[in-house]
């Protein structure tokens, strides 16, 4: 049976583009073969993972650098009985997702920073109405129109709410095309489990970069439900046949009822905080300095750590995979077991200091927290990280 799982077959297309040979790869069919390695961009990995997770509704509005996702969905959805809509706006796209989710489907939208700002209205409604939904933000430089270069400047917006009201998105930060695939599948499960919006926080570099990924043969076993319209969604609006009418709404007319809804939501968030923190830790047991970085920034940091290891500078890495809930437990555990030996945290971001605030809260004064960041399209380089770590190392 291990050889009989469905994995995509890949067709490699070559086309001449103004003299230069350009290759593109597309998933054309699903054959019964073993684990297969495919070359795919981060954006397309997200789109294919969504399809394999049972997402059968996608609505979105074009914006660079995430256009591969709607283009992929436009091609892929019709063949599998799914729905693709190019919406008139981001406001409409997120509301379409809200409707599809309310009707019981696994639904997703994607955008990049300025478009995600527009989606905040709908995200708040989705959170308030307790609907599952997956929202992808392939971050670009801001503020305002900014530019299409990669950034991590939407961390606050993603993890602190973004829209109005006391709510939280679950936020997942992939650092490779493989993880973009894995976390997107996971996102649909989390969204259904908690009836909560889940955001995939990627960036322009991760989205555009092509990498080999493996679609594991036992992937289906990881899913709670592969069907796009799961019968378990008893709350969905489907027509009130043989049951009392269902209502999907965030509005509460009576005084006190909105407070009760908020208390209920806070209870849910507390459970998510307790159960869903995830991070990757590297070289923590020996480290005197710990880098905290997520997404593509963590991969750049790994290069720096490797170089410094050769120079006998002991640097570890914490790579948050869930940005909300932030993996604060991992940081407090490290400080509990290695208090005094871990002297510095260096937070590296493609922003001017957003996640660093959560690191400071978790560290709570028990070690020094320094920050290295660039934004507006600037990406901290391996050399810059090494340089800063050497300066810190000299202070140890």
């Amino acid at each position, binding site marked *: 049976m291990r050889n009989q799982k469905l994995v995509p077959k890949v067709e490699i297309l070559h086309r001449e583009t103004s003299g230069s040979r350009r290759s593109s790869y597309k998933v054309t069919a699903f054959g019964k073969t073993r684990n297969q390695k495919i070359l795919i961009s981060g954006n397309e990995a997200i789109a294919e993972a969504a399809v394999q997770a049972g997402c059968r*509704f996608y*609505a979105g509005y074009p914006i660079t650098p995430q256009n591969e996702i709607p283009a992929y969905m436009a091609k892929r959805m019709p063949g599998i009985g799914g729905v693709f809509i190019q919406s008139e*706006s981001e406001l409409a796209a997120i*509301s379409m997702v809200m*409707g599809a989710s309310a*009707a019981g489907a696994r639904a997703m939208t994607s955008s990049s920073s300025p478009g995600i700002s527009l989606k905040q209205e709908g995200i708040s409604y989705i959170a308030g109405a307790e609907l599952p939904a997956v929202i992808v933000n392939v971050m670009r430089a801001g503020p305002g129109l900014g530019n299409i270069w990669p950034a991590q400047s939407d961390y606050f917006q993603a993890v602190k709410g973004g829209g109005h009201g006391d709510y939280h998105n679950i936020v997942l930060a992939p650092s490779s095309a493989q993880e973009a695939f894995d976390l997107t599948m996971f996102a649909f499960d989390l969204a259904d489990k908690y009836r909560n919006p889940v955001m995939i926080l990627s960036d322009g570099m991760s989205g555009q970069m092509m990498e080999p990924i493996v679609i594991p043969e036992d992937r289906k076993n990881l899913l709670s439900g592969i069907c796009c319209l799961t019968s378990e969604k008893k709350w969905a609006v489907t027509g009130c046949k043989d049951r009392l009418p*269902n209502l999907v*709404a*965030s509005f509460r007319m009576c005084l006190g009822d909105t407070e009760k809804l908020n208390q209920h939501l806070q209870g849910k968030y507390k459970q998510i905080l307790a159960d869903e923190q995830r991070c990757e830790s590297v070289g923590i047991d020996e480290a005197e300095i710990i880098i905290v970085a997520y997404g593509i920034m963590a991969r750049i940091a790994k290069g720096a750590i490797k170089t410094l290891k050769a120079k006998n500078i002991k640097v570890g890495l914490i790579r948050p995979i869930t940005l909300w809930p932030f993996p604060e437990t991992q940081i407090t555990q490290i400080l509990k077991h290695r208090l005094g030996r871990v002297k510095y945290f260096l937070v590296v971001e493609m922003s001017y200091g957003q996640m660093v605030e959560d690191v400071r809260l978790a560290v709570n004064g028990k070690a020094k927290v320094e920050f290295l960041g660039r934004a507006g399209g600037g990406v901290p380089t391996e050399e810059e990280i090494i340089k800063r770590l050497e300066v810190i190392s000299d202070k140890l």
Partner: protein
Amino acid sequence: MDKIFGRPKSLRDIPTHYCSGCGHGIAHRLISEVVDELDIRERIIGVAPIGCAVIAYDYWDFDCCEAAHGRALAVATGIKRVRPEAIVFTYQGDGDLVAIGCAETIHAANRGENLTTVFINNAVYGMTGGQMAPTTLLNQKTATTPFGRDAKSAGYPLKISELLAQLSGVYYVERVSTDSPVKVLAAKRAIKQAFINQIEGKGFSLVEILSACPTYLGMKPTAAVKWVREEMTKEFPLGKIK
């Protein structure tokens, strides 16, 4: 004795929260009667607006979903596309459908979504306290046009039904009124037609219902209804537009 008239099954027996003379109650009831007559209560999904009718779902005894202000037709699009067998309608006021949701309205209509929209036009914002609506008449006084709506600064009453009728995706548009029993019956016929169109897969149907808001017209209910009949219909003539 045979019972020949009663509460529709799809309308709950609860006290109304609407003001005296408000047209929402009539429109809610007409929809319920049509749902019963077409026997679609187990298939229907309503999308409620933001505005006075935000809790329309408290009255309707069938599945309903909330939408953000103006986004009802986007939410309805999502529902209908994943559940084509369901009968999906939006119930929206003039602010919701014509102002903040103008883009969603035009694009859902232009895509020819197989949906039904019941549009309540009372020429004023009710829930927020009587501000100017896109359909407020020229010279009509509201909280935000205290000297009367002046076209120079506030533009003209927006005739969305006529505008939508131009779109190829739109199958049916009719403007009706609730200002007299005869007109109410005509309104019901139009609503029924709009639902039948969806059942038959004809595409986008919209029924605009001229409705009185005595509270924010500053009139007694009878005077407000008369105002709808005599003043509103001059700007918004009744009848089938498409």
